């Protein structure tokens, strides 16, 4: 059970502010989720380059020579940027798949949070404000992002259990609610070769969308079919390389508020999350309908 925030910028001049706006939204949702916090941020593309966000509980040791070791092992240039317990590795897009495997071989304790052209995912246990400070989330810029504060229901309070979940390149998902058929679905998706790293119900939701898109569905279609295939209660906010989507289950009892202006589209579990946004007093504010897919693209 959780608090969700999301922000999709239409006005490019706000891009340097994305991190600070999202952080403010995230911190207001602390009561809904004091156990952990996470954020997915979509930055600027560097042509031909992919980035992997990795995390380690022993960051200093694990990250010190990671980029160099990876570069040597893959025989391609790799640069690294350390941010607290996280690091972002950049390398040629052609090597991103190989890099995933090689990181597991070189540093088995490292967790891969995300990979893609523009996505970076940061998440940690602890109060959202502390997490945001440790990772300097407010200093980040980007085109769109989502954030999540978690009150764990049935899976552990760990970094792996924190949202957002990413099960495909540049994809992420955050969730408020609880799914009731995730165990059976996890077994089925695992057989289909989709990677699922935790026992968390939300990760299965993310993996489901990844699987549908791998089978050729557009994100909107994948969200549409999730309404039939996922059982339980959910409000999802998802991110893709250039898009941002929202869907609620047909019963729709987990809260959701949206706001749109000329400058942005914003999502919050409560209106409180939106109060600091510029022009919120005159924004169009509404509650997303049940079983209805909302989607914005750059």
């Amino acid at each position, binding site marked *: 059970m959780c608090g969700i925030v999301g922000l999709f910028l239409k006005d490019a001049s706000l891009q340097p502010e994305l991190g600070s706006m999202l952080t403010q939204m995230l911190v207001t949702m602390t009561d809904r989720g004091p156990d952990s916090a996470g954020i997915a941020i979509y930055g600027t593309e560097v042509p031909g380059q992919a980035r992997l966000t990795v995390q380690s509980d022993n960051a200093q040791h694990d990250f010190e020579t990671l980029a160099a070791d990876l570069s040597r092992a893959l025989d391609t240039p790799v640069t690294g940027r350390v941010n607290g317990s996280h690091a972002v590795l950049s390398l040629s897009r052609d090597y991103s798949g190989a890099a995933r495997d090689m990181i597991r071989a070189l540093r088995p304790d490292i967790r891969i949070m995300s990979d893609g052209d523009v996505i970076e995912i940061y998440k940690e246990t602890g109060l959202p404000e502390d997490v945001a400070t440790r990772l300097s989330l407010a200093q980040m810029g980007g085109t769109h992002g989502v954030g999540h504060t978690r009150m764990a229901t049935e899976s552990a309070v760990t970094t792996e259990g924190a949202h957002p979940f990413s099960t495909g390149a540049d994809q992420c998902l955050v969730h408020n609610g609880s799914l009731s058929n995730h165990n059976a679905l996890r077994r089925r998706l695992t057989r289909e070769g989709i990677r699922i790293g935790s026992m968390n119900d939300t990760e299965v939701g993310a993996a489901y969308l990844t699987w549908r898109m791998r089978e050729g569905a557009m994100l909107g279609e994948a969200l549409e079919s999730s309404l039939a295939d996922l059982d339980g209660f959910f409000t999802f906010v998802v991110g893709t390389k250039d898009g941002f989507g929202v869907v609620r289950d047909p019963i*729709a009892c987990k809260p959701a508020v949206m706001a749109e202006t000329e400058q942005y589209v914003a999502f919050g579990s409560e*209106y409180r999350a939106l109060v600091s946004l510029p022009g919120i007093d005159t924004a169009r*504010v*509404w509650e997303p309908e049940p079983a209805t897919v909302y989607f914005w693209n750059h």
Partner: protein
Amino acid sequence: MQQYDLETDGLRGLNAALQAQAAEPEHTAWEVLNPRGSHAIAVGLNAPLDVTVRGPAGYYCGGMNQQANVRVQGSAGPGVAENMMSGRVIVEGDASQYAGATGHGGLLVIKGNASSRCGISMKGIDIVVHGNIGHMSAFMAQGGSLVVCGDAGDALGDSIYEARLFVRGSVKSLGTDCVEKEMRPEHLDLLTGLLERAESDAKPEEFRRYGSARKLYNFDVDHADEY
């Protein structure tokens, strides 16, 4: 007019001050500044106060109200005026889920739209929504009237008991055991009064009335699929 800044002075102080007026109101007019979507604003009041909330409120604004007039100059979060007993709550913007849930009495007016489950389990409250309402509204509604000047979403009045529903626009679908009913003169009178008190200029003749078919009141195996 007493002014109270919620941001600087905190929720507990506000509700304590308003609730303290119950015995013998010293100040009847109050203004709440900087609500910024906070929860449980002006709850448990029990005196004929006029409270104006200058901005959007969060969950359960005006909860369990007795006697007071609470006006929200903005939107209201889930459960506005939940379990209201008497008095009046007016939301000038939109209201989220569960508006007026389980209310026993008084009048709730929503000038914008209300989302899902408006009037769920209502037990005597009157609710007038100037805009539209969402799905599962008036679910298990027991008593009182729900007036919708716009459209109603799916499953209106599911498992309804004795509440009266009036909708001017379209109804996406009716819930189990909810049917359209004849609009009789006493209903038009009732509606006229409610619209007037709710500051609406809609015409009573433009509404249709819905209520319980009373088929679920005693178990019958032939209706088992509807449970």
